[in-house]
C-alpha cells in the first residue's frame, strides 16, 4: 500500500521531467539529426546520406566560418578570464563586506539587461556619429568622424562585454569559499606574490575557472546578436550561416547539418575543458 503510493508519487514527479526532456530536448535533436542526413536529389525527393555534411567540408567558406567562430570564441574566453579574474578576486577577497555586496550587485545588473540593449549601447558609443567619435573630434584627437563599428576588434570587445559576467560570478563565488588563511600561509611560508597566485589561488579557483570558461565559450560560440550588430555584414559568425540556411535560403537540411556541427563542436570543447580540468558537468553548471 505504502509502496504503491510511493511509486505513484515517483511516476507523477517523473512525468513532467520526462515530457520536458523528451519533447523539448531529445526528440528535437533526434529530428535534427535525421533532417541533416536527408539529401535533396530533386524537388520533393529525398534520400538518406551525408551530402549536407560533405557540402560543408567542400565549401571553404562554411568551415572557415566555423574555425573563425571557434578561434574567436577561444580568444574571447581567454580575454574574459584575464580581465575578469582580478575583478572576481577583488570582489571576493579585497573589498570590504559592504563594498563587496554592492560590487556583486553591480556586476549582476547588466545580466538582467538583454544582449540587444547592451549591443545597442555599444553602437551608440562607437559608430561614426557616436559618442566616442564625437569626443575624439571635440578634444582634437581626430580630425574627422571615426567609424569604430564593423571590425573584429569591436566584435571581440562586445563579446567579452556580453559574457564576462558569466566568468566573474562563478570565479567570485569559488574564491569567496577560499580561506584567507590559505593565502596568508602561502606568504608566511616564504612564497612570493606570483608563486602564491600560481600555486595556491589558481589551483583553488580551478572549478570556478572551468565553469566560467565553459559557459563563456558556449555562449560566445552560440551568440548571434553581438557579432551581427557590431560586426555588420562581414562578421561571418557561424550562427549567421545557420540562420541564413534556415530562414533566408529555406534549406533546412543543410541548416540542420550546420546546427549539428556547431553542437558537436561546442560539446567537444566543453568535454575537453571538463577533461583537462577534471571537473564534472553537474558541479560546473551549479556554480553559475
Amino acid at each position: 500500500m505504502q509502496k504503491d503510493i510511493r511509486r505513484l508519487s515517483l511516476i507523477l514527479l517523473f512525468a513532467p521531467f520526462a515530457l520536458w526532456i523528451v519533447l523539448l530536448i531529445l526528440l528535437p535533436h533526434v529530428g535534427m539529426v535525421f533532417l541533416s542526413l536527408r539529401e535533396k536529389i530533386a524537388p520533393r525527393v529525398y534520400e538518406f546520406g551525408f551530402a549536407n555534411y560533405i557540402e560543408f567540408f567542400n565549401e571553404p567558406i562554411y568551415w572557415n566560418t566555423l574555425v573563425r567562430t571557434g578561434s574567436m570564441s577561444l580568444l574571447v574566453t581567454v580575454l574574459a578570464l584575464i580581465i575578469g579574474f582580478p575583478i572576481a578576486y577583488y570582489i571576493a577577497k579585497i573589498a570590504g563586506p559592504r563594498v563587496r555586496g554592492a560590487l556583486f550587485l553591480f556586476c549582476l545588473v547588466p545580466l538582467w539587461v538583454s544582449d540587444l540593449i547592451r549591443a545597442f549601447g555599444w553602437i551608440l558609443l562607437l559608430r561614426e556619429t557616436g559618442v566616442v567619435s564625437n569626443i575624439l573630434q571635440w578634444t582634437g584627437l581626430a580630425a574627422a568622424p571615426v567609424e569604430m563599428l564593423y571590425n573584429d576588434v569591436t566584435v571581440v570587445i562586445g563579446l567579452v562585454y556580453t559574457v564576462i559576467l558569466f566568468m566573474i560570478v562563478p570565479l567570485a563565488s569559488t574564491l569567496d569559499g577560499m580561506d584567507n588563511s590559505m593565502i596568508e600561509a602561502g606568504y608566511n611560508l616564504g612564497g612570493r606574490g606570483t608563486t602564491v597566485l600560481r600555486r595556491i589561488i589558481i589551483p583553488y579557483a580551478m572549478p570556478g575557472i572551468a565553469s566560467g570558461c565553459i559557459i563563456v565559450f558556449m555562449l560566445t560560440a552560440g551568440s548571434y546578436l553581438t557579432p551581427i550588430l557590431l560586426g555588420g555584414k562581414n562578421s561571418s559568425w557561424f550562427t549567421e550561416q545557420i540562420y541564413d540556411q534556415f530562414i533566408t535560403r529555406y534549406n533546412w537540411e543543410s541548416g540542420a547539418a550546420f546546427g549539428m556541427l556547431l553542437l558537436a563542436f561546442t560539446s567537444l570543447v566543453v568535454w575537453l575543458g571538463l577533461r583537462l580540468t577534471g571537473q564534472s558537468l553537474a558541479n560546473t553548471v551549479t556554480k553559475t
Partner: protein
Amino acid sequence: MLIRQRKFDKALLGYRAYVLAFLIFLVSPLIAAGTFAFNDSLFPALPWQGFTLSWFFGDTEPKLGMFYDRRLLSGLYYSFIIALMVSLLTVFIGTCNAFLFVRKDFPGKNFFYILMIVPLVIPGVILGISILVLASSVANGIENRFDYEIGLLRPGIFLVVLGQVSFTTTITSLVIAAKLKKFDITMEEAALNLGASSSRVMRTITLPFLRSAMIAAGIVAFLVSFENFNTTLFLVGSESPLTITMFDRVHKVGSTPVLNAVSFFLMAGSGLLALLSILVQQDKSARS
C-alpha cells in the same frame, strides 16, 4: 617595512583604478542606451539638444513615443504574455524536478540529473532550430496524412514558449532544488507527528518553505524569457515579442531615440524585478 607598505599601497591604488575602469566599461553602454531616451533630437547621438519625455509620451510623428508606437506596444504585450507563461510552466516543472532529484531515489538518477543540466550548455540557436524542425515535421506529417493543419506547431507564441521553457527549466530546477536541499526533513516528520495528513504537510510546511525560492526562480525565468533572443529568433511567427521587434529596428532601419526609451523602460523594469527577487531571498534568510 615602511617602504614596502607604501609600495603595497600604490599597488592597491592601481588595483582599485583597474576595478573602477572595469565598472565604467560595464555601465557606459547602458548609460548611452538609457540617456539618449531623454535627448530632444531625432537621432540617438550627440550633441545634446535638451531634455524631453516625448520619446516616451509623444503622440505625433516624427517624435512618436514608445507608449504610442503600436508595434512596440504589441511587442511588449507579447513579450509579457510569453514571459508569464514561461515562468509559470518552468516553476511548475522546476518544482517537480526539485522534488524528484532531492527526495526520490530511482535507477539512473545521476544520468537523468545530467540530462536535466544539459539544456543549459546547448547553444540557444540550436534549441530554437531543433524545436522548429520537430514541430514542423510533426505538423507536416499530420497535414499530409490527415489533411489537418495544427497551427500551434507552426512558428508563433506557442513554439516560442516551448523553446524558452526548454532551457529555462534547468535554471528554475537548480534554484528550487538548492532550496529544497536545505529543508530539514524532520520538519515534515514533526508536522506528521502532530497529526497532519501528507497533503496538509505539503501545503502548510514544505511549499511555504519553498515559496521564496519559487518566486525568485519565477522572476529569473521571467527576465530570461523577456530578454531571450537566440532561441526566439527561429520560432517567432507574426506575433513578435519586443526583442525581435527592436532587433529589426536596430538592424534594418535607422534607429530613433524611441529605442532608447524602450531600453530605459526595460532596464528600469528588470532592475526592479531583480531587486524584488533579492528582497524575497533576503526575507527567507532572515527567517530561517
